[in-house]
């Protein structure tokens, strides 16, 4: 089974699901409302089944991942466009693996949770768009899943870019067609911001290729050969900026964040989970995979700036979150704050920091996902996203309130919940290098306690508002959707070791690459040897360095 194309299959399955949904009879097919409901149900079931199959495939793949094996596993490389040196090349290291797993875990959850979102059943009063095609919504979602798996699995910079940009289109339609409130404005802002970043990155991607052809070599976009490319300091800086700005917009890093609150507020809760939970991680994943590995010396050059931006983001996101009156907007701003912590961990350039940051990406996906979904359940009941419209929910819907509290506490990194581990690692990793930054970022955690608990207090406690009094508690479907996330938050909080073990070697390899031009701190390993060692499947006996 070692040659089984796991990644390709995992990527294709959702696409097959999307095609299967496309083949079901559409809205214009004959029949009454009952037939239409039956058709919609079929569509949703297909979406759920295919996302669960994808999850099963990635889980089966993950258990075969060899810790300490080659850096990239389950690799496949085929020529795609030989004129440009472009390959269809996929493979995962530990970082990509856990992010793919996070994606495939989130997708069935999101499908289940957004069962009725496309109809606009739970939209706030007055902002409900007319009935939209259920089919299209789930097709977009499954196509997006394919692209998200592709973007994490690609080991060819061109292929990565293709997924990175193509991903925008389904998300754009999900926000613009199915969202609420200022959905058009939010969708356009999201797309234009991302496109601008993407196009600047395109220039850098092409330039990288052109530099790879220097010296008469055939150019390539393959990631591993590109890590050995020798670039001058100036070139590195410009290319780094080209990549970094795209990722900073995607992540989003302060001050490139302004599209996120709008987009997340306008999107349906399910779409918002995909947007904040997965799409944002593409940005931070890109930083750790591409910015550090390909342009190490430029990364060091810009580190102080990025650390500063990250700290500002942590504090700014948290402070602005406190002041929000809209539930989804509040959660979106907490994400800005958390993404700042993740970039902080990445650019602290310590192994704790980067392991913590990667772990945080996963945990943040689950924690924020749960928070968004439960907030969405509440909004669909009360038909309002305003915090002021709630009060005393825990008396009428205790399960909903309890799960919301757990998800919220995960957001403020309570010890025992998964985010604590990652946040702790990030701060420890940062402290060894940038004490001031770590101390300031820690203040963000205090602010997190304010925005989470105050939000909880205003919505869940206190006298029961009359509009809330008849609010039903979570239904079985909703429990099945968020239950696994809450379970994961708790399990990974107690026992994060399996994930950390998977991430560790990948982070080590990244750090080695990132320091190859600047081999001073913080782990005095002999760079070249470790690189060849990791790439030749012999993880421990690397001191010989017999490989070319």
């Amino acid at each position: 089974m070692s040659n089984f194309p796991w990644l390709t299959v995992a990527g294709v399955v959702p696409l097959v699901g999307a095609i299967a949904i496309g083949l079901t009879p559409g809205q214009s097919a004959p029949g009454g409302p009952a037939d239409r409901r039956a058709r919609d149900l079929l569509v949703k079931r297909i979406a759920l089944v295919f996302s669960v199959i994808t999850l099963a495939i990635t889980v089966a793949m993950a258990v075969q991942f060899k810790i300490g094996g080659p850096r990239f596993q389950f690799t496949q490389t085929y020529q795609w466009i030989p004129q440009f040196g472009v390959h269809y090349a996929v493979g995962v290291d530990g970082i990509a693996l856990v992010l793919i797993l996070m994606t495939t875990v989130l997708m069935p959850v999101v499908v289940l949770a957004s069962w009725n979102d496309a109809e606009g059943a739970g939209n706030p009063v007055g902002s409900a768009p007319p009935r939209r095609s259920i089919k299209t919504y789930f097709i977009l979602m499954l196509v997006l899943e394919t692209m998200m798996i592709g973007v994490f699995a690609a080991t060819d910079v061109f292929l990565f870019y293709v997924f990175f940009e193509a991903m925008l289109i389904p998300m754009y339609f999900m926000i613009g067609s199915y969202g609420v409130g200022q959905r058009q404005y939010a969708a356009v802002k999201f797309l234009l911001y991302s496109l601008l970043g993407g196009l600047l990155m395109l220039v850098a991607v092409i330039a990288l290729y052109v530099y790879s052809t220097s010296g008469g070599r055939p150019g390539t976009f393959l990631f591993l050969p590109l890590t050995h490319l020798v670039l001058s300091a100036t070139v590195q800086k410009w290319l780094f900026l080209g990549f970094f700005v795209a990722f900073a917009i995607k992540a989003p890093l302060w001050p490139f964040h302004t599209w996120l609150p709008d987009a997340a507020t306008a999107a349906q809760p399910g779409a918002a989970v995909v947007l904040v939970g997965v799409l944002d991680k593409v940005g931070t994943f890109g930083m750790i995979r591409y910015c550090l590995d390909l342009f190490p010396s430029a990364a060091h050059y810009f580190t102080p700036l990025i650390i500063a931006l990250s700290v500002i983001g942590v504090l700014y996101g948290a402070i602005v979150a406190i002041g929000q009156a809209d539930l989804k907007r509040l959660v979106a701003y907490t994400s800005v704050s958390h993404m700042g912590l993740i970039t902080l961990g990445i650019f602290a350039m310590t192994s704790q920091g980067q392991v913590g940051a990667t772990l945080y990406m996963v945990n943040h996906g689950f924690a924020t996902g749960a928070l968004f979904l439960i907030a969405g359940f509440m909004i669909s009941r009360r038909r309002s996203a305003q915090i002021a419209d709630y009060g005393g929910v825990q008396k009428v819907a205790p399960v909903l309130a309890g799960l919301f509290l757990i998800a919220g506490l995960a957001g403020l990194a309570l010890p025992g919940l998964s985010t604590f581990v990652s946040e702790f690692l990030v701060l420890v990793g940062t402290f060894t290098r940038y004490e001031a930054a770590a101390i300031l970022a820690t203040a963000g955690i205090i602010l997190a306690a304010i925005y989470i608990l105050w939000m909880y207090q205003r919505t869940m406690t206190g006298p029961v508002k009359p509009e809330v009094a008849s609010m039903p508690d979570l239904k079985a479907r909703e429990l099945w959707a968020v239950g696994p996330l809450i379970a994961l938050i708790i399990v990974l909080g107690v026992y994060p070791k399996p994930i950390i073990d998977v991430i560790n070697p990948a982070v080590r390899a990244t750090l080695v690459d990132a320091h190859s031009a600047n081999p001073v701190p913080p782990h005095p390993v002999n760079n070249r040897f470790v690189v060849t060692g990791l790439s030749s499947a012999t993880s421990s006996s690397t001191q010989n360095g017999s490989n070319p």
Partner: protein
Amino acid sequence: MTAYVGAIAPVIPTPHIEYGLLSPMLLVFGAAVAGVLVEAFAPRALRRSFHLALTLGGLAGAFVLTIAVAVDSSVFGGGAAGRIAAEGAVGVDRPTLFIQGTILVLAFVSVLLIAESSHEVSAFAAQAAAVPGSAEEREGLVAGISHTEVYPLTLFAVGGMLLFPASNDLLTMFVALEVLSLPLYLLCGLARRRRLLSQEAAMKYFLLGAFSSAFFLFGVAMLYGFSGSVNLAAIAAAASGNTGNAVLLYAGIALLGVGLLFKIGAVPFQAWKPDVYQGAPTPVTALMASCTLVAAFGALLRVFYVAFGQLTWDWRPAMWAVAIVTMLGGSIIAITQTDVKRLLAYSSIAQAGYILTGVIAATTAGLSSSLFYLAAYGFATIGAFAVVTLVRNPAGEADHLSSWAGLGRRSPLVAGVFALFLIAFAGIPLTSGFIGKFAVFQAAIGGGAVPLVVVGAISSAILAFPYVRVIVLMFFSDPPADGPVVVRPSVFTTSAVAIGALATLVLGIVPEPLLRLAHDAATQLFVR
């Protein structure tokens, strides 16, 4: 030297014409002439069918002949770049054959649009001579007459387009320019609806076109004054030999460049494009936006790569400036457009700017990427204009963007296909537009033009806004109560849209075959 030979042998030698090499062009011109005869002698009821068979058959036959020439070992045997035919008037080489093949395929698809007759009798005026609003016009409309002259006119224009990039001397090129332009001036004025707008477009196109032809001709004269020849290779030899008056040379390059850039619609020579694209009958707009652009770029490439190939350092700064203002101008002005055809016109201007970045590289990569971009863009643009012909209200096509609101709700398929074309124009991956943009930008960076590509990227981001706005209108807005309807297209328009959409997707996902073809075509550049 010719004079000397003439002196000792006072007989005029019969020119040696390589009929085989010229057969694609000859076939198209022959079909055009036959079309005139059909117009004169065939009964009215049968004319359209005769014309259709003749036009489509002629174009398809010419395409087959183009392939036959391309695989002909006597042309490219022994590693030759190609052959000069017709006493030095025509160059037959791989890039030219690629361009001609592209023009023929795109013209074929455009003719499918021209032939559409299910929405109304045709897109063309009943009697071009009848004054708008007059009794004669009503008479013709009531009788259901249509202009079938459009078919031979199209063939003449396509013939000129085939010759334009193949011309090896500037006089032939000028003749080709006129042969391709004159029928287009006429075709622009033949719209069945909104005839005043159409006639205004034809008038503007004619006046500005004549103006640019004068520039072109003046440039030819200057270059003749410099080198004593209108032959591209001779001009190149004179330029590299550094003999003659450099002022004449530079003035010649500039004037010739103005003439060619006008046809491309590069800023600041773009003024005609929005008006003409808007006023012309949409099938003709599709023909111009695809085939004319390809032919004009073909000629530009040949002139600047062959005649001025040694002078890259001299013309490149000016071309940089033109490319930058074209990319930025086209994309910025596109934002304010409210008419879908004008929007596509400004988008076409910006796209021309992107292709110019490939042209400027002056390398084989620049040539091959430009060739690919032209083919990819041609298919998408015909498809886009084909969709425009389908969205109609009682007064004809509903061009105003406000009436496109909610189209995605009522006709998801048509709106979806149009969105696909817009996404391709915006250069989003998995469409042909992305691969094309990638190719030209790569050629430009390979040629050291990084700032140009950065401007190109910024302009692409700006240009994405108007496209995105149309998508927002179509999909995210509610349809107005009295909005236009999407007519059910006949097999002609359906196949034009389908070919466009299919090519856009296939060239975006498996671009390798066409890229290889373009690459092979470009390896030896043009024949000298």
